[in-house]
């Protein structure tokens, strides 16, 4: 189905990434958001709070991030599409409810506009230091999907996609922005509603009494029911069986945890989004994401001017990690260069997936600003043996 036109601001706009993200949420069908102010994410919910009363929905400013991150889940079970937004310190507080969403298979989106950390860190300055926290931050084993926009335009399109992926896989989805992308203002084109694909919630067609909230289904994503429709179902963060009832056996745990994982791995092809630039025949490929890939463009251009065959691979989806793509690439190049605004998080994944087939050169950066392209250029030269 396509987007509800009441939420779509079709046209060409001059927006920052935060504002564009809000428009993406609305186009993607979000009619509920709960938030707690935190720089540099606040503009997203500021805009949502202004826009939503005239569209038909609710914004509530909660007392903290713990509350915001679970209020959206209550709204989802009442029938709304919902999201929340935050930055590092708030993301840490939301971890418990990211686990709840994964465990109860509650479709919802968490936007993290990354800033320098740890702790209060750099409230107004960029980093990409929460990439591993998005993957492993909540306790226990659970899968996740994370997207990384590089521009305000992508904050719009990837937020729509995040809302859709959450519904398709019944899982929490992360939009991992950063302060630069969030506060950078550029042209954003919002297409007509009828051209924006929106994934409807997968709802049960069974009658009350026959419905089992976590029953086996072909794609491992069980259909949902909403509260108030007569199903009288139970949802718990405890390990549960197909009826949704707590069950503390090794067999139930294994079945549930494996299914949560499997539903994402089986959907890898539908989730993975990677952009390649002159990868064929390249001696060195720069693998990056978010704002850092845009900075790397300059380094790539300079390296090419020096005669180095350098390609680029931009991870639009970072989680689940495009393991096979990286492995295949590693077998064909002299080096992979991994710049990122952290001390080497995704670089570890690249190294794991390269399995020793090539040299992996991280270009770490502690944050507060973006890389100097020269740092990336030096790494490219090193990889090319110049």
């Amino acid at each position: 189905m396509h987007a509800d036109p009441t939420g779509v601001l079709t046209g060409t706009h001059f927006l920052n990434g935060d504002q564009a993200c809000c428009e993406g949420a609305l186009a993607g069908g979000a009619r509920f958001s709960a938030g707690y102010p935190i720089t540099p994410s606040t503009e997203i919910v500021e805009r949502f709070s202004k826009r939503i009363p005239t569209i038909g929905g609710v914004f509530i400013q909660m007392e903290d991030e713990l509350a915001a991150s679970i209020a959206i889940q209550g709204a989802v079970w009442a029938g709304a599409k919902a999201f929340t937004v935050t930055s590092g310190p708030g993301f840490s507080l939301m971890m418990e409810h990211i686990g709840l969403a994964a465990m109860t298979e509650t479709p919802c989106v968490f936007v993290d506009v990354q800033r320098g950390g740890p702790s209060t860190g750099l409230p107004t300055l960029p980093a990409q230091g929460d990439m591993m926290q998005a993957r492993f931050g909540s306790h226990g084993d659970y899968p996740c999907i994370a997207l990384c926009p590089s521009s305000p335009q992508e904050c719009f399109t990837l937020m729509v996609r995040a809302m859709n992926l959450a519904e398709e896989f019944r899982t929490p989805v992360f939009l991992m922005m950063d302060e630069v992308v969030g506060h950078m203002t550029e042209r954003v084109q919002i297409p007509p509603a009828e051209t924006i694909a929106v994934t409807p919630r997968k709802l049960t067609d069974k009658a009350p009494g026959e419905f089992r909230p976590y029953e086996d289904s072909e794609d491992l994503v069980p259909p949902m029911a909403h509260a108030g429709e007569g199903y009288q179902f139970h949802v718990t963060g405890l390990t549960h069986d197909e009826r949704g009832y707590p069950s503390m056996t090794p067999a139930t745990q294994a079945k549930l945890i494996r299914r949560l994982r499997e539903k994402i791995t089986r959907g890898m092809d539908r989730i993975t989004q990677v952009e390649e630039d002159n990868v064929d025949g390249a001696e060195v490929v720069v693998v990056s994401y978010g704002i850092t890939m845009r900075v790397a463009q300059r380094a790539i251009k300079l390296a090419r001017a020096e005669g180095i065959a350098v390609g680029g691979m931009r991870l639009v989806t970072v989680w689940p990690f495009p393991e096979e793509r990286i492995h295949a690439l590693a077998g064909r190049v002299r080096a992979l260069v991994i710049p990122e605004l952290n001390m080497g998080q995704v670089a570890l994944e690249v190294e794991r997936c390269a399995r020793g087939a090539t040299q992996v050169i991280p270009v770490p950066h502690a944050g507060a600003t973006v890389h100097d392209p020269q740092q990336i250029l030096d790494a490219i030269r090193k990889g090319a043996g110049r």
Partner: protein
Amino acid sequence: MSTAETPTEMPLCEQAPGENPICENPVEQFLRTDRMPHIWCPGCGIGTTVNCFARALLKTGLDLRKVVVVSGIGCTGRVAGYVKLDSFHTTHGRAIPFATGLKLANPELTVVVYSGDGDLTSIGGNHLIHAARRNLDLKVICVNNLTYSMTGGQAAATTPEDSITTTSPYGAFEPAMNIPHLVAAAGATFVARWTTFHVAQTMKAMQRMLTRRGFSFLEVISPCPTLYQRRNQMGDGLDTMKHYKEVSVSNNNANLAEIGMTKSGQITVGNFLEIERPDYLEAMRAQLRNRLQERYIEVGGAPCQN
């Protein structure tokens, strides 16, 4: 002194002469009998409150398809799993914000938060204060057994001074949180406290909460014979009922500042407060309509379909 009242309108078993003497407990229809036996200990008061809740629901005649129970974590947190309603067993302390999302996204729902003292007042204390402040239409039932029971009987914010618990082995010395006083100060529009001895009053208070609008709070003082009463030489569940009967004083006009729980002193019970002020949704709608006029699109009961 209060007197014992038992619900007379609803006998456990209505039997006409000559009929089969085996009949259903009227409460059973509200329970997930396929989940029995429950986890609660003999003498525990949580089941008593669930009995009151089921009877209150029956009396209100509410459409059960629209009644939702949200619990946090702990012994009382397990209530959501046993009631045959849409039910959510959430995270520790966060039943109220989950319920907030449910209610705002579908205002047609009657949303009940059913949880324990540790869950609602300690780890979830901030949410309790803010939901009361907003006067959001939630019906909060707090079973207060004065201790953390699920984890083995540790000291809680509600543990009365000098009580022995596993983490206050020489006796607690922090003052116990006076929950009715707190929620009233925060802005709740209905506040009551009863004990599990007062089953009729508890049921009536629940009935009132279920049929009124606004943030409604009921504290039910309840025994944990396995962990609290035993360690404090207060006997078993029945002894606790006798104790509650003996020390409870019903006073609807009590000064809430003075009704904090002590280990063996008076327990002030009553329907302390019922006032009217616009609830969250009323206030939100009025404000937005005033500012936005016809541009405001009111959130109805119909959930979004995409």
